[in-house]
């Protein structure tokens, strides 16, 4: 029997397809300018963990790769690296629990953050580390952590995850962390249950060790009061800017978003002061007016004692306007009309989702600038716009995006050379990535931690001897290409 017929017996004929068009339409990821995913051979839309379990057993029998996909965040593989079966989890989108007293929620893997946040708000709760874009589903964001506002105070989204239900490569359905207790009287109330933290095993793994089907989150009280402010710095004050970011992060400010002026230069409606080079948009949260005033005073003291100038009206407008920044493409497209017509609107990520110590920001930014200048990719109108998310633990997750003509081989040659030179330098420094694994990230994210990589490979081989779950996820691609 053909595998597709066997899958049809599990999910019925309407939720499986091997049509060329259907499969092609899933061959995308959310990484601007990078096509690292491959076309699946079969797309299946399961509705339950039990269906997934049966499909995994079949995949083992037929030795066919199997990869999960939710609605994407703005990054991550989000698809097959080796073809095979793609599980589209978007029909698994039920909210299973909202417990406002114990501040917990459980949802199926395909539930979107927007859907979940919308319901949590009604109960006075929030998931503060909401990622970019409306669609990222709760599990995809955990298995490939995404950039998110609120990270300055609360850290990465995964810090709020307390439990998973996972279908293992054998087809066995298990629950880890708080989800292990989900059906008991106390419910899913604590992540660090007896034994080592197995929730961590299933994060940032692109479905390679198991397919997450349910996820438990620790929620936070939805703050009553919010403040939105912008400060800016001239280019020669990057050291002071860095001190301000460190200070704001230490003060547990809700969110700091850092840009250079190139990001905003593209938007027709934005006019910046001449001496504004770096912008910091700050979101504050508090339970009452008094606390908010105190936080605002802290923010002012930190920014102004470190050469920051206040820019009124900017963040206030940006963050409170509908649609919000979640639809950030609305903000950057179409680009400023005054851009030369020949400058194409194709964006590519040059320096991608880098994680580095906040204290090293001047060094990192200077290196980016130096390399971009060398390759003719710096300055207006050809530029590379930097966007940084300062996170707690005094780190920054940053990236840059560059509009360029990707049909010009010379431009692309410089783009890739610039990127490669930076990667080599950054990798030697010990830099890493927030949300990507090879091949979307360079191999140094593994080679810099060879011991851990070998352990992950061993676990993978143990759990998945046929290498059917998201094959390609834990591999060294540069060696393979060589």
């Amino acid at each position, binding site marked *: 029997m053909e595998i597709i017929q066997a899958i049809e017996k599990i999910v019925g004929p309407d*939720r499986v*397809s091997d*049509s*060329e*068009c*259907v499969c*092609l*339409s*899933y*061959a*995308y*990821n*959310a990484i*601007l*300018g990078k096509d690292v995913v491959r076309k699946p051979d079969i*797309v299946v*839309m399961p509705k339950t963990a039990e269906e997934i379990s049966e499909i995994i057993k079949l995949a083992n029998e037929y030795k066919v790769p199997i990869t999960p996909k939710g*609605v*994407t965040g*703005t990054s991550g593989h*989000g698809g097959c690296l080796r073809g095979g079966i793609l599980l*589209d989890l*978007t*029909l698994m*989108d039920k909210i299973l629990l909202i417990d406002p007293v114990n501040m917990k929620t459980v949802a199926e893997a395909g539930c*979107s*953050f*927007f*859907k979940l*946040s*919308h319901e949590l*708000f*009604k109960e006075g709760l*929030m998931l503060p580390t*909401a990622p*970019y*874009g*409306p*669609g*990222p589903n709760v599990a995809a964001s955990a298995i490939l952590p995404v950039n998110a506002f609120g990270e300055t105070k609360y850290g990465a989204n995964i810090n709020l995850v307390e439990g998973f239900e996972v279908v293992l490569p054998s087809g066995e359905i298990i629950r880890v962390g708080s989800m292990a207790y989900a059906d008991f009287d106390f419910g899913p109330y604590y992540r660090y249950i007896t034994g080592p933290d197995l929730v961590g095993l299933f994060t940032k793994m692109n479905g390679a060790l198991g397919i997450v089907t349910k996820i438990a989150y620790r929620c936070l009280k939805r*703050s009553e009061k*919010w403040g939105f402010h912008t400060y800016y710095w001239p280019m020669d004050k990057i050291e002071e800017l860095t001190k301000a970011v460190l200070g704001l992060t230490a003060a547990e400010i809700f969110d700091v978003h850092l840009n250079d002026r190139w990001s905003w230069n593209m938007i027709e409606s934005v006019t910046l002061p001449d001496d504004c080079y770096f912008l910091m948009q700050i*979101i504050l949260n508090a339970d009452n007016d008094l606390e908010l005033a105190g936080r605002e005073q802290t923010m002012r003291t930190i920014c102004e004692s470190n050469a920051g100038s206040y820019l009124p009206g900017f963040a206030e407008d940006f*963050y*409170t*306007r*509908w*649609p*919000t920044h*979640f*639809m*950030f*493409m609305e903000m*950057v*497209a179409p680009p400023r009309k005054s851009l030369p017509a020949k400058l*194409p*609107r*194709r*964006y590519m990520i040059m320096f991608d989702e880098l994680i580095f110590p906040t204290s090293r920001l001047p060094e990192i930014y200077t290196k980016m600038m130096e390399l971009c200048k060398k390759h003719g990719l710096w300055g207006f109108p050809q530029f590379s716009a930097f966007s940084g998310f300062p996170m707690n633990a005094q780190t920054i997750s940053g990236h840059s995006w560059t509009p360029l003509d*990707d049909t010009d081989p010379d431009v692309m040659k410089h783009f890739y050379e610039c990127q490669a030179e930076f990667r080599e330098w950054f990798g030697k420094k010990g830099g890493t990535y927030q949300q990507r694994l090879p091949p979307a990230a360079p191999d140094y994210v593994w080679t810099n931690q060879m011991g851990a990589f070998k352990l992950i490979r061993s676990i993978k081989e143990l759990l998945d001897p046929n290498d059917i779950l998201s094959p390609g996820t834990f591999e060294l691609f540069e060696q393979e290409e060589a």
Partner: protein
Amino acid sequence: MKELRKTYLQDFRDSWTLCAHCGTCNARGPVIPHNWKELPPPEWTSPYHRCPSFEHFNFRTYNAQGRGILAMRVFDDKDFPLSDDLMKAVYTCTSCGVCSDICKATDPLTAIWALREELVRRGAELPEPLGKIHRNIDQTNNMFGSAKPVKMEGVPTEGEDIYFAGCNARFTQPKVIQAVLKTLKAAGIEAAYLGEEEKCCGFIPGHDGQTDLLEQQAMRNIETLKEAGCKRLIVSCAHCYKAFTVDYPMIVGELPFQVVHYAELLSQLIKEKKVSFTKRIEKKVTYHDPCFLGRHCGVYDAPREVLSAIPGLELAEMERNRRWSYCCGSGAKISGICYPEFGNAVTKERLQEGMQAADHVVTACTTCVSQMSRVARNEKMDVEIDDISTLAAEAMGIELP
């Protein structure tokens, strides 16, 4: 001048490569959760199900995101196979426009229309019965290929005010023609009706990729209407309205006459106290916003103003209304005709939603009326469906055959 109506994949390539695949255009659930300060205002609290073909087929292939990806594949590969699967993915789009209303950055629907034009340029065989409809329009000036439209005795065939009935009304809904002409006459407007001389507006070919035929029909209509002395064209089909107000100006520039939808005109006449609803209609009705009148042309209030002015009539809204209105199943007269099982399922869902609000669905588009009436009849659904004109006539005490 003609090139103005053309759309090319090239025009969308940049915006589609910019697409971050955030999924807003198709994701189920609310579009925006919050801006931390407050819950979304009502206009942003979108319904859970929005894209009809995605809801029906479930695979991403059948939403704006999937079609955009296919469009770029076609653009990049001049030998891309024009398979039945591709045609199904592209032509099951209902053109309802909800995706483009959400994401103005990439405007997915216009890109899908550009993809259809590209497929036509590459010689793709369009799903049936589009070829037959094109021949009918070309040869008989109506989509049905029928010889004789409804005749209206005693109605002028030329004048400054001309009623453009559209194919559906001209051949299948004489009651609507009577209602429009008689209500307008009662309000002091003696509108002409061209009958056999009226030409199909060309909406279907204009939106299935055969834009040359739309241009041909635009020229034919404008010439005929000019000859008939038209100063103001009154339209009661949402598709014709979109063709005249959005598409034709892209072909010929400013039209030599004003175009108004019947509901807009009636609403204006009510405000001017030229219409008097003398008969109470003790009914609860719900209004279905036609995609091409609402989302595509921004006419939401006028039909509601008309219905609200009818004494005794209670207007109840469906869950998905105004900008979030759901397709009637006709799918721009394309997906519903080419994929009737899909179209009928959408219609059934929409009618069931309507029946949650009222047992009488009123709309302002003869195509929607035609589609919903047929499915309600076939599915034995206990719901009345009317064009707004017939309800207005009843309220004015005008008897219709």
